Structures are given as structure tokens and as C-alpha cells.
């Protein structure tokens, strides 16, 4: 298997300062692989503070890892020459949650779409450029005549988001990294946007990294999922295993908290976990052992000693929790590789 995009044991620490005060380990030894051979959709899920957005920015080369490396087609992003970097910039596209900051408020949104067409020479004439732009807008669920010629502030958050989707489609990328692409979009349109992203995988072979806090859409869209908790992978594997039958106490808490759109399936499950998690949460201090240990109802002495490694409970799933220490430990990279291969 060749890896297209890979995070190899990546750690990112923010704000060191004297005596390591205010030091935050945003991403802590995460490995992730997107295969070049087979298009896939990989979800990275977690709550705020899980490090999912930092991981996204690392994967895009927007920030550098403190240790470990990000590789595109086998080359480290930091060691790339200009040509390889341009290729990376075209082939790896991003969609963010609220793209308002991606727009220049004094230019019409047309510029957001025409700049990549020009920069990457996607069209040979003005008409062709306009046609490509109009087509990608329609694919994202927008009427070109109601979108073009407007300023960013004249559009709704949902419309601005769909323009960013249209912009990514315009470039025919290999990988789209989508950070909460539908969280600000209405339910009826959410399905339409996710469907168009899934179709990109099926029909154009584009791989997707779907970063979200929403386990339902993660389950629907992706094959594999990485559950992050305070920067570390808590559980990783196929969505069938991780979401349908979660093993890490944190994943179980997350899954049982999802409000399902069905009045017959009540919020339920893990009352012990709820009781503990309802207690005022401890400040985000650094925990020596498992980061979830101060919230976990199953906490044991060893949990407070050292962070647990990943234990491979199934072929297609590993859990970073001592409750599963009877399974064989597995390296993050090895696990990522075997998931990308599957």
C-alpha cells in the first residue's frame, strides 16, 4: 500500500514558556494514513479541545508538528521543494466550518472562485471559467445567479459554506479535508452536501478526511474513525465497530450522548458514566496517566500511572484503555496502516 497523506506519530505543543506554564499538548502522538490506492472517507471525531482542528491544520501544512512528521506521497511537508508543494496545495483541499475568514470582505465572492481557476489554469477562456464555476456552484446546491456578484456579508453562513465546497470541487483534488463542513448548515442541505462529498469519493476517487463532533454523520459517511480525546487517539477502527459497539469508556459516553432523531430511542445507556461526567470537570491540567482517568467510572490504579497504549481488540479496531489489556498492544502507525489497507 502506498500512503497518499500520512501523519506519523505527530505531536504538537502550543505555548511553552518558562516552567512549561500554559503548555498545551494539542495533538499527542497521533498516526493516521490515507491510502493512495483506494479512495476512502476517514472521520476524525472529538469534542472541543480534542485536538481535531489542530490535527487538521497539521495535515494541511498550516502549522508544523513539534515532533513527528506529515508526509504527502512519502515526502515530508517540511522537506518539500516548491513544485512538490504546489502539487500538494492543489491536490489537498480544505473546507472549514465557518469560512467567513477565508473571504476578503471587500471583494465579491466571485474572486474566491476565480482565483484558483486562474492560479491553477483550470480554464482556457473566460466562458469556460464561468461555466466551471457555475457548475461547481450547482453541485454544491447554489444558484449561480444568486451567488455570483455578491459580497460575503450578503450571503448566509450556509451559502458561504457551499461556496467553499464549490471551490474545493473546482480544483479536482485527491484529498479533501473537511473540518465540520455541515455543522452550520440546515438538516435538509446537510444530507445534500454530505452526499456530494461521498459521491466525490465514489465517482472521482477523491479521499475525504471528515473532521466532526457529529457521530451520526461520521457513521453515515465514513469507513474508519479516529476518536480523539485531549489530543490522543482513544479509539480507532471501522465505524461499524467503534460507533455501533464502542469499547473505550469515553467513546461510550459520546455515543450515548448523541440525541438520536427518534423519539422511541431515548437518551440512555451508561448511567455510571453520566454521573461522573456530570460532576464539574477538572481544569485542563496535564494528567500523568490516561487523560480520561479523572472522568472515568472504571478508573484503576494503573490508569493514573502511565498513558495506556492502543490494544487491538479486533482486526479493525484498537482501544487505548487498560480495560482491554488482554488484547495485544499495537503501534498507532501499524494500526493506521492496517485500516488504510482494509
Amino acid at each position, binding site marked *: 500500500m502506498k500512503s497518499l497523506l500520512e501523519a506519523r506519530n505527530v505531536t504538537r505543543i502550543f505555548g511553552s514558556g518558562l516552567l512549561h506554564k500554559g503548555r498545551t499538548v494539542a495533538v499527542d502522538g497521533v498516526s493516521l494514513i490515507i491510502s493512495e490506492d483506494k479512495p476512502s472517507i476517514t472521520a476524525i471525531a472529538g*469534542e*472541543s479541545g480534542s485536538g481535531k482542528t489542530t490535527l487538521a491544520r497539521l495535515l494541511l501544512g498550516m502549522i508544523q508538528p513539534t515532533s513527528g512528521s506529515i508526509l504527502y506521497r512519502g515526502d515530508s511537508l517540511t522537506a518539500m521543494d516548491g513544485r512538490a508543494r504546489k502539487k500538494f496545495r492543489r491536490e489537498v483541499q480544505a473546507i472549514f466550518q465557518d469560512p467567513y475568514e477565508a473571504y476578503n470582505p471587500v471583494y465579491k465572492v466571485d474572486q474566491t472562485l476565480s482565483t484558483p481557476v486562474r492560479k491553477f489554469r483550470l480554464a482556457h477562456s473566460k466562458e469556460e471559467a464561468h461555466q466551471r464555476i457555475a457548475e461547481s456552484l450547482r453541485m454544491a*446546491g*447554489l*444558484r449561480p445567479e*444568486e451567488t455570483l456578484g455578491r459580497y460575503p456579508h450578503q450571503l*448566509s*453562513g*450556509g451559502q458561504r459554506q457551499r461556496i467553499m465546497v464549490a471551490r474545493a470541487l473546482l480544483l479536482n483534488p485527491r484529498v479533501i479535508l473537511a473540518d465540520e463542513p455541515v455543522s452550520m448548515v*440546515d*438538516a*435538509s*442541505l*446537510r*444530507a*445534500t*452536501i*454530505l*452526499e456530494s462529498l*461521498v459521491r466525490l469519493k465514489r465517482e472521482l476517487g477523491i479521499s475525504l478526511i471528515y473532521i466532526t*463532533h457529529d*457521530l*451520526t*454523520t461520521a*457513521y*453515515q*459517511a465514513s469507513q474508519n474513525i479516529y476518536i480523539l480525546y485531549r489530543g490522543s487517539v482513544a479509539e480507532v477502527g471501522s*465505524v461499524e465497530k467503534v*460507533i*455501533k459497539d464502542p469499547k473505550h469508556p469515553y467513546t461510550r*459516553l*459520546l455515543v450515548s*450522548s*448523541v*440525541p*438520536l*432523531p*427518534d*423519539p*422511541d430511542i*431515548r*437518551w440512555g445507556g451508561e448511567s455510571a458514566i*453520566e454521573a461522573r*461526567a*456530570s460532576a*464539574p*470537570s477538572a481544569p485542563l491540567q496535564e494528567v500523568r496517566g490516561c487523560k480520561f482517568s479523572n472522568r472515568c467510572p472504571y478508573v484503576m490504579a494503573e490508569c493514573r500511572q502511565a498513558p495506556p497504549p492502543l490494544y487491538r481488540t479486533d482486526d479493525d479496531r484498537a482501544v487505548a484503555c487498560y480495560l482491554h489489556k488482554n488484547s495485544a498492544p499495537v503501534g498507532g502507525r501499524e494500526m493506521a496502516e492496517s485500516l488504510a489497507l482494509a
Partner: protein
Amino acid sequence: MVRDRAQDRDACVLDVRDLRVSYHTAAGPVRAVNGVSFFLRPAERLGLVGESGSGKTTTALSLMRLLQESAVIEGGEVLLDGVDLLRLSQEAMRLARFARISLIPQGAMNSLNPMMKVGEQLRDTIRAHRNGGNSRVTFDTRIQEVLQSVDLYAGVMDRYPHELSGGMKQRVCIAMAILLNPKVIIADEPTSALDVVVQRQVMETLRRVQEALGASVILVGHDMGLMAQFVDRIGVMYGGKLVEVGPVRGIFKDPLHPYTQLLIKSLPNLQTKEDFRGIPGLTPSLLAPPPGCMFHPRCPQAMQRCSVDVPALAEVKPDRWVACHLYDRGQA
């Protein structure tokens, strides 16, 4: 048998009749709420759902008379225990807010004053409704009681908002909303900025205090999962109108309006994969609304009269209200 509507209305806490609200924009007036009528039973939780631009937030804010300056309430009645809030003087309305009808606003955590300690903000709320006489001590007793009921420790009173987590700030907003025992609490997407675990805890707190208080709640939002878990009845809005109102189970299991049917089908679940069913077409432009039913350009079951006549919201089965020509007498 269709239940007598008048009977139902007599028993209700809040009765909204033919509410119409427009925004004045550079491109012309936008009819954001176009003849919305619904009622709220005592101690019930009603969900108001719809896409952005459907008018759900405008409806909610109209009930409190807290609209932006560009908005004009053009007509209708908002009867709270028989008194029309739209006809109260500014001062009478100010006194009614919090005391009889309160709001947990969208992004409520940012609605707290960053320069003021939480306790002082809560005291202000009480002070604004009492003409002296009450000492700080009695205020604080009530405040502590309310903070406890939303699972906050009393020490929160001496904190500034930035010292609290998002979930805690949200609980402060709930505390403020119930401080004066209102009959109706409007919660506008109260947890949209929170993580799922905290969201569930906050919603369960809200449910608990609402039940203890016997207040009615209007939950405004677009998260159908949250609606399924929290409310008793749902009102579905589309293009400034209510298109369907019914018990939560009926809306999810047997939706009547074609829009509601498509909306329910579009929801992701944990049973199927890669099965996305968005609603084809786009939300209507409120500047140039289509004639007839607002949904007819997107409706798979549209008939000729749908593009001509505006369907009225009518009770077609007990407690099931729908605005759709499919259910016109003799057709359903």
C-alpha cells in the same frame, strides 16, 4: 372526531394568532413570519423547527418583543394568559420579560455581561422587577436556590463569565431565565455551541427545572435529534409559515406535510450508511415568495392548486395540524 379547538385554546398558556413580522431591507420588505398561529399547553415542551430563514427565531423573538430595529410586527396577537403582549406598553412588557416569559437566547453564553460577576447579573434581573423593599440577602437566597437547581455551586456568583466553561455559562443563562418563575421559557438553540456530552447534561437540567417549575418551554432549533429527545410537540416552519404541528412521535413516525416527510427522511441515523436523502431544490426567496404554497416548487406531490391557493393550517386528525392541499376535505 376533530377536537374542539376553542376548548383547547381556553386551557392554553400562550396563544399566538396570525403573527406577521417583516424585516425592512434595502431590497424591500421581507415577510419573515407570515401568519403563524399556535398555542402552548401548560407545562408542555414545544419544538419550533425549520431551516435558516424559515422564521423560527423571528417568531420566538416576537413573543418577547426583542426583534431588531429593522423588524416590524405587522399584525397578530400573542396572548399570554389572555393578555396580548403585543399591545402592552414598553414598561409593562419590560416587567413581563423574565417574570412571565423568559428567553435563553441563541449563543446564550455570549449574552452575559463580561464585566459583571454572575451574582450581580442575577441580582440585577430581580432588582429590575422589584420596587425596592427586598434586601440583598433575600435576593441571594433565591439566587443560590436557583443556581443549585441548575447544578451550579453558589461560588459561581463571585465569578466572571470568562472564568466559567461553556456548559456552566449556559446553566447561568438557564438560572436567569427561571429566576422569577416565568410561565413560558423560550430557548433558542440553547446548546448549539456545546459538545454532545455537555449538551445532554444541560438539556436534562433544563427539563428538570422546567418540570419542577411547571413552566412551558418553546425550544427553537434545527437539531431534530434534540427535538426527538426533548419536546412533546413539534411545529415545523417553512418560508415564514407553520406547515405542520403535532405530537413528537407523530411528526417522526407519521409526518403529514410533504416537507416534514422529506425532512424526516433526510435525517442521518445509525442504521444505514451512505444513504443521504437531501431535499431537492432550494429554500424559497422571501423577497419574491412563490404564489400559493411556499413549498410547492420543491414538493414531489404538488398539484395544480398548490401554485395558486395558500393552504391554511387545519386540524386534520386529533392534535395533528397541517397546511397542505393534500388534506383538503374530501381528498385525504
